[in-house]
C-alpha cells in the first residue's frame, strides 16, 4: 500500500479503536492465548501474550495494526516459540468465505487490477493501458454473497447442534470483516481434538469421503440397495431428502441408481458435496495453532469490522460492520463497479476525485481501487 494511503487508513483505524474500546475485548482465558498483529506493508508479529483489555487497547493505540489476531488454542506459555508453548486445547473454528462458494454473482462484482500499471478494469485478458497479462483480482462483496454465506452458516450450525451435540450457547457467529463468516465453538468436548481428528470432523461437515456402503449399497453386490429414509437423522436423512426430493418417487429413483451401479452412485454422492456439504475452509478448522482474527477488530481487506452476529438473519454487514467515521474525505477513485455501504450506493468512479465518508474511502483504499490524492 502506498505510504500516503497507509497514513490515512491508520489515522482512521486509530480513531475507530480510540472511540470503540467497548467493542474490542480480549477473549476469555486471556493469559493462555497467543496474540499477533500485522501492520500495513509489514510482516506478522506473533507469539505475544496480552493480559487484559487495557494492554490490548494500549497495543492498538501504539502500534495501530492493520489486523489483530488471537489464537483459538490455549497454551501454558503463549509467548514462547511454538515448540515451547505447551499446547493444552483449542476452540473449534470455522471459516466460511464467499469466494469459496463459486457463485455466479462474483463475475459481476470482481475487477482486475494490472500488477504492472495499477490500471483497474472489469474484464480483460491483457491490460488495455500497458499490455501486461498479470492481474490482481479485487472483489467488492455483494448482498448475494452474504446471503449465500449465511446459508452455509445455517447448515453448519445445524450439523454442530443436531449431529455433534453442541449447545447453541457455545456457538458464536461473527462476520469475518470481509467476505464471509467465522464460527467459534467454545467449551465443548471437542477442545482436545488434534489436527488430524479435526480434519475428519471437517470432512464430516463438508460431506467429504462418503462411500455408497453408508447409504446401503455394497461394491460386491451393487444390485441390492437399501437407501435411508428422509426422516433419519444425520447425513443419511439429508442424503435421502436430496435424492428423493419433495415428491417421493422412490421406486423410480432406486431403479435409476441400481441401473447406474456402484461408481455411478459414488459419483452422484460426490456431486452432492456442492449442495448439501457445508463449504468451510478445512485448513482453518484443522489448524490448532492458528491465530485467528480477533472479534471487534478491523479487517484491513475492507475496513469493515469482525463483529458478532446476534441475529444472523437480519444481519447486514454493509451497515452493521461498517463502523468507521462518517466524516467526509477526499480520494482519487478508480472503481469501475458500484457498491453499497450504510444503505448508500457509491460508484462507479472513473479516475475521479471525490469527497465521500471516511468508511467508504477506507473501503475503497483497502480494496485497492482508490488512493489518497
Amino acid at each position, binding site marked *: 500500500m502506498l505510504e500516503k494511503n497507509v497514513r490515512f487508513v491508520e489515522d482512521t483505524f486509530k480513531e475507530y479503536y480510540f472511540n470503540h474500546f467497548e467493542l474490542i475485548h480480549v477473549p476469555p482465558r486471556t493469559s493462555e492465548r497467543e496474540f499477533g498483529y500485522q501492520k500495513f506493508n509489514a510482516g506478522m508479529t506473533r507469539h505475544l501474550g496480552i493480559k487484559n483489555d487495557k494492554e490490548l487497547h494500549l497495543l492498538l493505540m501504539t502500534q495501530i495494526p492493520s489486523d489483530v489476531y488471537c489464537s483459538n488454542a490455549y497454551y501454558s506459555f503463549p509467548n514462547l*516459540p*511454538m*515448540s515451547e508453548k505447551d499446547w493444552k486445547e483449542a476452540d473449534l473454528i470455522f471459516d466460511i468465505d464467499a469466494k469459496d462458494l463459486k457463485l455466479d454473482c462474483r463475475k459481476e462484482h470482481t475487477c482486475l487490477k494490472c500488477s504492472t500499471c495499477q490500471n483497474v478494469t472489469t474484464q480483460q485478458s491483457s491490460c488495455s493501458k500497458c499490455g501486461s497479462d*498479470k492481474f490482481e483480482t479485487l472483489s467488492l462483496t455483494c448482498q448475494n454473497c452474504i446471503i449465500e454465506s449465511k446459508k452455509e452458516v445455517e447448515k453448519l450450525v445445524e450439523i454442530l447442534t*443436531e*449431529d*455433534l*451435540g*453442541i449447545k447453541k450457547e457455545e456457538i458464536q457467529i461473527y462476520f469475518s470483516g470481509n467476505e464471509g463468516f467465522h464460527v467459534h465453538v467454545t467449551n465443548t*468436548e*471437542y477442545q*482436545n*481434538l488434534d489436527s*488430524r*481428528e479435526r*480434519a*475428519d*470432523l*471437517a*470432512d*464430516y461437515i463438508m*460431506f*467429504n*469421503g*462418503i*462411500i455408497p*456402503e*453408508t447409504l446401503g449399497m455394497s461394491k460386491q453386490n451393487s444390485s441390492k440397495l437399501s437407501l435411508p429414509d428422509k426422516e433419519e*437423522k*444425520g*447425513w*443419511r436423512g439429508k442424503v435421502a431428502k436430496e435424492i428423493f426430493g419433495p415428491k417421493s418417487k422412490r421406486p423410480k429413483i432406486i431403479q435409476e441408481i441400481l441401473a447406474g451401479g456402484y461408481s455411478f452412485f459414488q459419483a452422484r454422492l460426490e456431486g452432492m458435496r456442492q449442495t448439501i456439504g457445508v463449504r468451510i475452509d*478445512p*485448513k482453518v478448522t*484443522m489448524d490448532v495453532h492458528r491465530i485467528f482474527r480477533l472479534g471487534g477488530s478491523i479487517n484491513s481487506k475492507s475496513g469493515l469490522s469482525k463483529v458478532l452476529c446476534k441475529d444472523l438473519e437480519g444481519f447486514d454487514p454493509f451497515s452493521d460492520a461498517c463502523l468507521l467515521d462518517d466524516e467526509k474525505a477526499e480520494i482519487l477513485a478508480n472503481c469501475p463497479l458500484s457498491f453499497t455501504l450504510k444503505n448508500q450506493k457509491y460508484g462507479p468512479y472513473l479516475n475521479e476525485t471525490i469527497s465521500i465518508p471516511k468508511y467508504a474511502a477506507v473501503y475503497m483504499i483497502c480494496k485497492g481501487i482508490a488512493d489518497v490524492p
Partner: protein
Amino acid sequence: MLQLGTKDLAKYPFLAETGVYLRDKGFNLEQLGHPDWKPIVEKAYGRIVVAATGQIYGSDIEKLEDLDSEILSFVTAIILLKSAGISTLIRRFSLAEARRAEKYLEQDLRSKDERKLDFPVKIIQDLFSVKVTIQGDDFVIKVADYLRRAVHFHEREWKLINRRVEKGFVFLTSHETVRLIRRELDAYINSKIHSTTTLSIPETFKERVADLVALAKKFSDTVTISTEYPPCIKHAIEVLERGENLPHSGRFMLATYLLAKGQTIDQIAPLFKNAPDYNERVTRYQIEHIAGTFGSRTKYSCPSCDKLKSENLCFEIPECSGIINPVQFGKKRVTNA
C-alpha cells in the same frame, strides 16, 4: 476393581487382577521352573510362535477345562519374551493377544446376560476411559472419543461421515466398538510386558528363550523401492509445469516429499519456476525453512494421505493401497516368514 472369575482372567490375563489371583493361588516363578510345569512353558512358547506368525492364539474358553494353564501360559510367555528381549516378538505377541481379547470382548458385549455385558463395558471404560452405553443393538460412544481412535484407521468406512452420528454420539456394532480400542489394548498389553521385571529365569525356560531368539531372525524385513512418484506428487509437478497455481498446501507437500526422498534444495527450487508468483529468493527461503536448515529448525514431514485427501490434493490409484503417507509409495515390504 472388577469382580472377576477365573474364566474372565483366562480371557483377559493382562488385567491387574491376574497378579492378585496368582498370589492367592500361591503360584510363583520358582514353582514354574519345576519340570512338572514343562507343559506350561511349552504352551507359552506355542502361544508366542502362533502370535509371531500373525495368527491369533485360540483357546475356546467355553470348552476349556484347565483355566489355570491359560492364565499361567500367558504369564510365562511374558517371562520368555522379556528374557529373549526382542521387541519384534513382543510387538507381535501383544497385538495377537489384543486381538484374542478383542474376540472375547465382542462375545461378551453381544451377550444378553446383563452381568456379562457390564463386564466388557467396564473394561473399556476403566482401561481406556471410553464410556459405552447400549441402545438396543447399538453401542454408543461420544463423537470425540470416536474420532481420537478412528483417525488411526485408513479404511474409508471409519471416517466419521460413514457413521451414524446423532447429538454428539456415534452408533457402533459390538465388533466395531472393540475394533476401535485394539490399538490401545495392544499398547496396554505391550506396556504390561515392558513393565514386567525378570531378574533370573528358571533353567527349564532357557532353551525356549534361545529358540525365540532364533525365531526372531526369520522376521527381518526386506524393502524394495520403486523410483516412481505417487500420483499426488505427479499431479503437483504437472500443475507447476503447466504454469498453473498450486496452492500453498500443494507446494508444501511437494517440497516435503522431495526432501524426504533425499533431494537437495538446489534440485527442488527450480521445480517452482513456472509458478505464477515465482520468486527464486522466496522459494529457496521457504524450502530451507521446511528442510529445517534455518529458522525454527523444525524439519517438516510430508503430510499424510488423509490430510492430503482433506485438502483435495490426493489422486489415489490402486497402487496407493495400504500406504498412509506419499513417501511410502512404491515401497514393498517382503517378510521372510
